[in-house]
């Protein structure tokens, strides 16, 4: 557990978790809160989650990446209120080779965005508030790989 946190994400501590003397290539991706979205000025936002499932899904994504690439991996996603510029998500992959580190890191962020049940509520400069529903509304046609068998 511990993929989700209400505290600011400590990137250096996460890197230290996956780094080792045999893994010299470390690829990190950070998603930070932007000050605009679809042409509107964003003041701050709030992430909520279906927390036990989010933890379980992150654990599955990490296990998949570690099975596919020879890499140590980490995911951390912030929940609660976030200000502009704060880190919302950090994913890290450390490997002996940079190709594997990059590929695993890319996998972690793509799958996290697609599969982890987290929702974002944006608060705008004009006083309005809205759910950001960028993802697919229905089961994606290529979801077979991550849907549990019926």
């Amino acid at each position: 557990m511990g993929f989700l946190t209400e505290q600011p994400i400590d990137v250096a501590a996460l890197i230290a978790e996956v780094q080792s003397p045999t893994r010299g290539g470390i690829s990190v991706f950070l998603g930070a809160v932007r000050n605009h979205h679809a042409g509107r000025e964003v003041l701050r936002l709030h992430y909520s989650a279906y927390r036990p499932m989010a933890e379980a899904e992150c654990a599955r994504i990490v296990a998949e990446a570690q099975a596919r690439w020879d890499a140590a991996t980490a995911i951390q996603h912030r929940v609660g209120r976030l200000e502009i510029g704060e880190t919302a998500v950090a994913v890290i992959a450390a490997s002996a080779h940079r190709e594997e580190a990059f590929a695993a890191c890319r996998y972690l962020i793509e799958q996290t965005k697609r599969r982890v049940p987290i929702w974002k509520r944006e608060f705008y400069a004009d006083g309005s508030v809205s759910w950001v529903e960028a993802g697919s509304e229905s089961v994606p046609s290529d979801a077979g790989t991550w849907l549990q068998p019926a």
Partner: protein
Amino acid sequence: MATAAASDVRVRVLLFASYAESLGFDSINMSLASPATVGAVVERLRALPGGDRLPPRPLCALNLAHVGPEAPVAAGDEIAVLPPLAGG
């Protein structure tokens, strides 16, 4: 709601974010005629006030894992109906 019968399947259903807002609740216990599927849970939700906000095939989870609407449900299962995800 259907009357509970010996063969009925009682499950817990969770809603989140915009779906919880639309239907006005974020969790409900539901009894379904056996055999039941996740899709049957969605159908029942869509018939409730505000339920037209749900698409016919929303993202769903069964016991903390993504499943399709054909997934069978058993007594005690936890089904979650998930609005479009926005993490990352």
